[in-house]
């Protein structure tokens, strides 16, 4: 039983740490495939990477319903930490979540189960944050789309292995769709719904 006093801390400087983290995420979203670093340190409960924790402290609050994957939801440290530091309500129904936190990518549910937005309000969609093994080594993916000058190459070790195949549904859905943020420790890469994979190496 962890008491609140024993929970890992939030940002030392709430204001400037959130600003710095946001700029990393904004740059990641504006330049899909580019690896951005999250500099500010915050405590992170067990299954949560420090990058994920910083993003949570930066973007989550009482206005953002959260969906947690089984591994996150099982950890009472994670749920307590999120509740104490962000106040974001955790929901069981992933189709109403503003954000989804996924630590076990292999068990990622069908992307259709998340909010895809509507044609009138495509912004009302879930941002899926997936913790991955590496954003510097592994298979290489060639990406194109808005934010990318020509082609961006991402080297990453990602679960689920077929994530980019699954994200192809964004092509037909646009402007509805799923935006994905990949986190590996302090590294972050965003794959907004406009990004397309041109080819995959091994």
């Amino acid at each position, binding site marked *: 039983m962890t008491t609140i006093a024993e929970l890992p801390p939030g940002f030392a400087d*709430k*204001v*400037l740490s*959130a*600003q*710095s983290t*946001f*700029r990393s*995420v*904004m740059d990641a*979203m*504006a*330049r899909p495939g580019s690896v951005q670093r999250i500099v500010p340190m915050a405590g992170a409960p067990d299954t949560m990477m420090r990058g994920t924790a910083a993003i949570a402290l*930066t*973007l*989550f*609050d009482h*206005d*953002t319903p959260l969906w947690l994957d089984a591994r996150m939801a099982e950890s009472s440290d994670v749920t307590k930490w999120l509740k104490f530091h962000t106040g974001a309500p955790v929901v069981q129904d992933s189709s109403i979540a*503003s954000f989804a936190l996924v630590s076990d990518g292999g068990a990622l549910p069908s992307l259709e189960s998340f909010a895809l937005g*509507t*044609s*009138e*309000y*495509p*912004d009302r*969609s879930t*941002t899926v944050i997936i913790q991955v093994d590496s954003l510097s080594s592994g298979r290489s993916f060639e990406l194109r789309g*808005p*934010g*990318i*000058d020509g082609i961006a190459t991402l080297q990453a070790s990602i679960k689920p292995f077929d994530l980019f195949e699954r994200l192809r549904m964004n092509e037909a859905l*646009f*402007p509805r*769709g799923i*935006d994905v943020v990949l986190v590996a420790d302090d590294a972050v890469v965003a794959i*907004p*719904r*406009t990004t397309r994979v041109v080819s995959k190496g091994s």
Partner: protein
Amino acid sequence: MNAPAYNFAYLDEQTKRMIRRAILKAIAIPGYQVPFASREMPMPYGWGTGGVQVTAAILGPADVLKVIDQGSDDTTNAISIRKFFAKTAGVATTTATDEATVIQTRHRIPETALRAHQVLVYQVPIPEPLRFLEPRETETRRMHALAEYGLMHVKLYEDIARFGHIATAYAYPVKVNARYVMDPSPTPKFDNPKMDNCPALQLFGAGREKRIYAIPPYTQVVSLDFEDHPFEPYRFNAPCALCGAENSYLDEIVTDDKGGRMFVCSDTDYCEGRQAAGHHGSLSAAPYKEKAQEAANG
């Protein structure tokens, strides 16, 4: 009790989170207007409250801020907003385009090409390009959902039928990433080509209308036109009277009551930079000539 009672960059953290989430969705859906809970700011609507809120949400202590109003760093609006952030966020400010990391603008895009580490924040009065054609928000929203932009082409066609050319000179509608028709804010259409494939991130904030939208870097931005009436940027056919520039956007300044006028660069930083580099026009200000002479005399 003289400690500043404001948070860093004025806005409270909850508001910043809300705006930041809107910015991320705006970037993910280029050209789509994301509704946001715009706050009252300590300046009137129409003075850039949307741009100010976007700037406040992204600004950090390491940023260097430039604010322009119709290209000028020295007008009331630009000075007020620059001082506002110097005071509430303590950030460094500049008038030099290439030194700035965040540039807030009203109605111009700087002449100096923007670079990848810069963010351009536009102040937007009416974000909905279809608003003057269809006043109902429910209808314009449906039109965007269906990508039904026939009405806008009819409007441009009516320009041609009436005037023989597309008479829209500012806030000239663009299509972003081949999907959303977007209002570029009341920039002169001269600036439209600069938005296309721009290395910098472009963010748009409309405070009164409560919308945020974005153009990610390296994104296709096409000015709407017709095959037989292609888009053409407009510029007065004259060199700048101060720096002699032949390719910058010009303001027309009336100099007397006898029809006298001069044309000068609207972008003051660009114009001053050129004058300092020795370029001059027909009415160059004396101090630059003196400086040039001093330099020549060693």
